[in-house]
C-alpha cells in the first residue's frame, strides 16, 4: 500500500498532466481498493453520506482505471461522467474531477497541480508538506523517521483519523454510484457561482450536534441518516430532568431562595439551617463545630428577627459545651513585685522579720494579725502577697486598690491560668486587649468560644476596646485557618462585608475565606449561607441589602440556570435588580450589565407568562427595562466619546419639538431621542455600534458642549446654532434601520 502511494506520488512529480492524473487516480484507487476490502469486513452500515463531492472524483477514477476492481460501478459512473462533462462544456460550471482545476476549469497542468495536491493534503496534514506550486514525493510524516506513515498507522490500527475521512469518501463514492446521489447532489444544479474546491466535508458521518437553550433545554441532534430512511430528529431535553439527582442540583433545590419571596416563611429558612448542621457539619472536628455554630447563629438571628444582644450569642457559644474546661495554671504565680516568695512558703521556719516561728496551722485571727504586722513595717507588697496566699481577698483587694493599678489587676489575674476566660475578662476590664485575642486558635489555648462569650456578655466601659479585642481575636483565628470562627467574631464586631478582590477586607462571604481560589471561595453553600444572613438583616430592617453580596446572587442565578432551573434563576435576577434599583445601579456597573444579559435570556422562563395574553409576553418586566436604561446611561457617562461627559443636551429642531439627544460617543451603542412629555412624538431608536453617529456629533459638539446636562427644559433659550437642521435630523433617521426601533428602550429624562 505504502509503495503504491509512493509510486503514485513519484509519478506525480514528473509533472506530466496525464501522468499526474493517472497518479492521482491510482492513488485514489489503491486507497479505494483497500478500503473496499476493509469495508466489507467492517460493520455493514457505514454511514453513506449523500453530499458526495468526491463521488464524481471517484467515478472519474473508476473510469480511468478501466475496470480495476471497480467494474461494478462503471455503468452509473459513465452516466454521471457524461452529465458532468455536458455541464462543463457550458463553460461556466466547474467539474469536480481531480484532473481539472476546480476553479479555473483549466486542464490539470504543472501550474495548477498545487490545487490537487492541496486537496490531497486536505485529507490529512501528514500527506503532504510541499510548498505551493510543486508536486512532491509523498513526504514522510513529521513524526519520528523510520516509523510507517501515520496514515498507514491509522488504517492498520483501525483508529479513526482525519485520514480516514478519505476512505469514507471513496467508499461513499463506490457505494453511491447509484441514483441516490445524482438527485441529492449535483454540482451543476445550482447554476450560480459554483461549488467549492475539493476539500473534505466537515462531516461525512452522522454526528450529534449539541447545544444548550436558555430555557433549560439541552438540544441534541439524533445521529441519523435520513437518506437511509432514518428520521431527521432533533431532541429537546429538559436539563432539569437530565441533572436530576446530581449533587449540584440537589444542593440548589434544597435552598428556598431567593429569600425575598412573599410566600417564604422564616421557618423554612431555619429548617434549612438545621438541615445544614445535621448534614454538612462534621462535629468531630473544630472546623465542623465552628461551621455548625455559624448556622446556629443564623437560626438565632432568624428567630429573633435579625436582632441579638451579646448575651444571646454568649448563650449560644456556651450551649453545646458538654464539659466545662478546667483552666489550670500552667506557671507558678508570677510575681511582679519580686517578693522573696519562697521564704514565705515554708511554715515552721523562723520569720526573719518578726523573729517568731509561725505556727503550722494558722487561725484566721493569726493570719490577719500577721498581715497587720507586715504593714506595721511598711511592707505593703509582702502583706499583699500574704493576704492573697491566705485567701484574705478583702484585705488584698483593698490594699492593692490603694497601691498602683498594675498591682491591683495583678491581684486578680495572677491566680488564674492564662487561658481562663476570667483572665480574658479581667484583662479587658483592666483596659487591655486580652491575651487570648492574639493567642486563640492555638491548640493549647483551647476553645475560643468561652472567651468570646465573656467579651460579648460584658460590654462595659470602653466599647472601642471591646470591639478591637473581638476583631483581633477574629484575625488570630483567621490566621490559624479557623475561618468560620473568625467570621463569627467579625460578625460580632459588625465588620462589613467586602470584595473578593480586596484582600484587605476581612470578609466577603460568610464562613468562606476569600484568600482561597475563587471556585472554592464562592461555593454554593457559602452563597446560600450569606443570603440567609442578609435575609436576617432584612427581618430587622427591610431593604438593608449587602451590596457587595449581590454579585454572588448573580453567580448563584447562573448556576440555577445551568442546572435546569431557569425560572428560579429569573426570580433571583429580579431580586438583584430590585436591590440595585433601590441603590444607584451605577455603583455596580458590571453587575448591572451582566444581570441584564442573563435576565434578558431568561425572561421568557417566567411562569407568569403562561397566563398572559400572547401579545404581552413579548413585553419585558419593568425592572428589566429600568435596569437596562441605567446601564445605557452609565455607558454614556463613562464613555470617552466624541461629546464631553455632559452629553445630555437639548436641541430644538426646526419643527419646534424639544428633543433630547443622548449621544453615545464613537463606540456608539445607541442613540435615543424622545420628546418632551407634552408631545406625543416619541422616537426611540438605536444606532448599533457603528461610526456614523460620530460625524454629526462632531459637528454639533462645539456648540452643544456649551450646554450643561441640566438644560433639559424646552423653554430654555437655546442659541440658534444648537438646533438640529432638518437635513441632520433626516440623516439621523435615515441612518437608522427602522426595525431596530422597537429594540431600544426609552431613557428616563
Amino acid at each position, binding site marked *: 500500500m505504502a509503495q503504491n502511494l509512493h509510486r503514485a506520488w513519484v509519478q506525480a512529480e514528473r509533472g506530466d498532466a496525464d501522468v499526474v492524473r493517472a497518479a492521482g487516480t491510482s492513488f485514489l484507487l489503491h486507497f479505494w481498493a483497500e478500503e473496499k476490502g476493509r469495508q466489507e469486513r467492517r460493520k455493514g452500515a457505514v454511514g453513506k453520506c449523500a453530499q458526495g463531492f468526491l463521488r464524481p472524483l471517484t467515478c472519474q477514477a473508476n473510469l480511468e482505471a478501466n475496470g480495476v476492481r471497480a467494474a461494478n460501478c462503471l455503468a452509473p459512473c459513465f452516466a454521471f461522467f457524461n452529465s458532468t462533462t455536458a455541464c462543463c462544456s457550458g463553460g461556466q460550471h466547474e467539474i469536480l474531477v481531480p484532473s481539472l482545476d476546480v476553479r479555473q476549469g483549466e486542464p490539470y497542468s504543472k501550474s495548477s497541480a498545487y490545487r490537487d495536491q492541496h486537496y490531497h493534503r486536505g485529507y490529512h496534514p501528514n500527506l503532504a508538506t510541499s510548498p505551493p506550486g510543486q508536486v512532491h514525493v509523498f513526504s514522510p510524516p513529521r513524526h519520528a523517521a523510520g516509523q510507517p506513515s501515520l496514515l498507514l498507522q491509522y488504517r492498520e490500527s483501525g483508529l479513526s483519523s482525519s485520514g480516514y475521512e478519505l476512505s469514507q469518501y471513496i467508499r461513499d463514492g463506490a457505494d453511491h454510484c447509484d441514483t441516490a446521489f445524482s438527485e441529492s447532489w449535483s454540482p451543476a444544479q445550482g447554476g450560480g457561482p459554483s461549488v467549492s474546491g475539493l476539500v473534505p466535508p466537515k462531516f461525512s458521518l452522522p454526528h*450529534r450536534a449539541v447545544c444548550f437553550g436558555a430555557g433549560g433545554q439541552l438540544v441534541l441532534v439524533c445521529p441519523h*441518516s435520513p437518506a437511509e430512511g432514518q428520521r431527521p430528529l432533533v431532541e429537546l431535553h429538559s436539563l432539569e430532568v437530565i441533572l436530576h439527582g446530581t449533587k449540584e442540583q440537589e444542593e440548589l433545590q434544597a435552598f428556598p431562595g431567593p429569600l425575598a419571596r412573599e410566600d417564604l416563611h422564616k421557618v423554612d429558612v431555619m429548617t434549612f439551617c438545621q438541615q445544614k448542621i445535621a448534614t454538612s457539619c462534621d462535629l468531630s472536628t473544630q472546623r465542623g463545630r465552628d461551621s455548625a455554630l455559624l448556622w446556629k447563629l443564623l437560626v438565632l438571628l432568624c428567630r429573633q428577627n435579625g436582632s441579638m444582644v451579646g448575651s444571646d450569642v454568649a448563650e449560644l457559644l456556651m450551649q453545646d459545651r458538654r464539659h466545662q474546661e478546667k483552666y489550670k495554671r500552667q506557671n507558678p504565680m508570677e510575681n511582679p513585685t519580686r517578693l522573696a516568695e519562697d521564704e514565705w512558703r515554708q511554715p515552721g521556719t523562723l520569720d526573719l522579720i518578726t523573729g517568731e516561728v509561725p505556727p503550722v496551722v494558722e487561725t484566721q485571727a493569726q493570719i490577719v494579725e500577721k498581715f497587720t504586722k507586715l504593714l506595721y513595717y511598711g511592707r505593703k507588697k509582702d502583706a499583699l502577697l500574704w493576704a492573697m496566699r491566705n485567701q484574705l481577698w478583702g484585705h488584698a483587694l483593698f490594699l492593692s486598690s490603694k497601691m498602683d493599678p498594675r498591682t491591683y489587676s495583678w491581684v486578680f489575674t495572677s491566680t488564674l491560668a492564662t487561658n481562663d476566660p476570667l483572665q480574658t475578662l479581667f484583662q479587658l476590664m483592666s483596659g487591655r486587649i486580652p491575651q487570648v485575642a492574639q493567642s486563640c486558635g492555638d491548640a493549647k489555648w483551647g476553645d475560643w468560644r468561652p472567651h468570646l462569650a465573656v467579651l460579648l456578655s460584658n460590654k462595659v466601659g470602653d466599647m472601642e476596646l471591646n470591639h478591637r479585642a473581638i476583631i483581633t481575636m477574629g484575625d488570630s483565628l483567621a490566621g490559624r485557618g479557623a475561618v468560620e470562627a473568625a467570621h463569627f467574631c467579625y460578625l460580632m464586631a459588625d465588620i462589613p462585608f467586602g470584595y473578593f478582590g480586596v484582600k484587605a477586607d476581612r470578609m466577603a462571604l460568610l464562613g468562606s475565606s476569600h484568600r482561597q481560589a*475563587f471556585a472554592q471561595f464562592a461555593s454554593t453553600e457559602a452563597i446560600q449561607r450569606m443570603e440567609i444572613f442578609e435575609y436576617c438583616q432584612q427581618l430587622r430592617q427591610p431593604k438593608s441589602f449587602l451590596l457587595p453580596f449581590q454579585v454572588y446572587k448573580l453567580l448563584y442565578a447562573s448556576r440555577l440556570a445551568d442546572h435546569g432551573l431557569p425560572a428560579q434563576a429569573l426570580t433571583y435576577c429580579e431580586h438583584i435588580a430590585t436591590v440595585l434599583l433601590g441603590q444607584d445601579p451605577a455603583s455596580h456597573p458590571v453587575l448591572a450589565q451582566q444581570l441584564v444579559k442573563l435576565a434578558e435570556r431568561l425572561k421568557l422562563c417566567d411562569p407568569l407568562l403562561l397566563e398572559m395574553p400572547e401579545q404581552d409576553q413579548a413585553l419585558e418586566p419593568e425592572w428589566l427595562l429600568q435596569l437596562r436604561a441605567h446601564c445605557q446611561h452609565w455607558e454614556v457617562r463613562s464613555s470617552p466619546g466624541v461629546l464631553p461627559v455632559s452629553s445630555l443636551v437639548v436641541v430644538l429642531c426646526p419643527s419646534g419639538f424639544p428633543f433630547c439627544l443622548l449621544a453615545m460617543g464613537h463606540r456608539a451603542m445607541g442613540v435615543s431621542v424622545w420628546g418632551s412629555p407634552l408631545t406625543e412624538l416619541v422616537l426611540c431608536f438605536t444606532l448599533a455600534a457603528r461610526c456614523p453617529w460620530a460625524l454629526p456629533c462632531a459637528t454639533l459638539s462645539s456648540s452643544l458642549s456649551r450646554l450643561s446636562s441640566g438644560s433639559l427644559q424646552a423653554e430654555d433659550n437655546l442659541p440658534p446654532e444648537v438646533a438640529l437642521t432638518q437635513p441632520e435630523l433626516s440623516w439621523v433617521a435615515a441612518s437608522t434601520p427602522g426595525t431596530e426601533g422597537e429594540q431600544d428602550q426609552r431613557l428616563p429624562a
Partner: protein
Amino acid sequence: MVSVINTVDTSHEDMIHDAQMDYYGTRLATCSSDRSVKIFDVRNGGQILIADLRGHEGPVWQVAWAHPMYGNILASCSYDRKVIIWKEENGTWEKTYEYTGHDSSVNSVCWAPHDYGLILACGSSDGAISLLSYTGDGQWEVKKISNAHTIGCNAVSWAPAVVPGSLIEQPSGQKPNYIKRFASGGCDNLVKIWKEEDGQWKEEQKLEAHSDWVRDVAWAPSIGLPTSTIASCSQDGRVFIWTCDDASGNSWSPKLLHKFNDVVWHVSWSITANILAVSGGDNKVTLWKESVDGLWACISDVNKGQGGVSAVTEGQQNEQ
C-alpha cells in the same frame, strides 16, 4: 425519568449538522446536508416550522443566531464556500447578505458579543478566517485573516464581552476596556487566540496540545468571574480545557478533560458555562462540570439515540 420534552421532526432530507437555540430558547435553527436551513418555533413543546431557507448549494455546517437587539438574524455557512445571513423582515425570513469571499468550504460561523455590534467570524477550509462587520445601510465590511490555520479552520468562537474578574472586584466606576478576542481551531492541530489591536486582527496565542485536527472550540461565556476558559476537542479523542487567570490574557494552561476512544466532534457550554457538553464519534453526549477543587467530572451522559439518561456512577466515571 424521560428527559425528552420535545422531539422535533425537521423533515431534513439528509444529515443534520447543527441545531442552535435562539437567545431565549424559543426557536430552533437546524441545518443539513440537504442544503437547507430550517427554523422552528418550539415554545411550549410545539414544533412549528417558521422558515425553510434555501440558498446554499452544499451541505450547511453551522448556524448562528445574532443577538435579538439587532432583530431576528441568523447566519449559516456551507460547503459551497458561502456564508449567508438571513433576516426576518415583517414576519418573513430572507437572505440579507451573502458572503462569497472564501475559496473553500466555510466550516464555522460565530457572532461576536452584541456589545461590539454585528460582527460575524467565519472559519474556512481555505485556512482563512473572515470577519464581517455590519456598518449600516446593508453594508458589511470584511476583514480577512489569511492563513490562520494551515489546511483549514474548523471552528471559531468569540470571547465574552466582559473583563475577567471585573464582576467580583470593587467597582471602580471606570468604563471597562473590552478587548475583542476569539478562538479558532484547525487542521494544524492548533487552537489560536486572535485579538484586535488598532482595528487589526493579530494572533495572540497559539495553544498546542492536540495531536490531530481540532474539531471544535468553545470559549466559555462569562459573567465576569476571574478565569477565562476555552474548551477544545479534536480528532485525537481529547478534550482540553484551557484556562487563563491573569488579566493580560497571556498565560493559558491546558487541562485534559478526558481522552475518548473516538473523535470528539463538538464541545458546547451551557449558557453561563457551568456545564460543558461533549459529543463524540461514538454518538454519546456527556455533560461535565468542574468541581470546586478544579477537577472535571462527568455528571451525566445521554445515551445514544435513546434519549434516555443515566446518572453517572463512580465506576462508570472511572471507566471513562
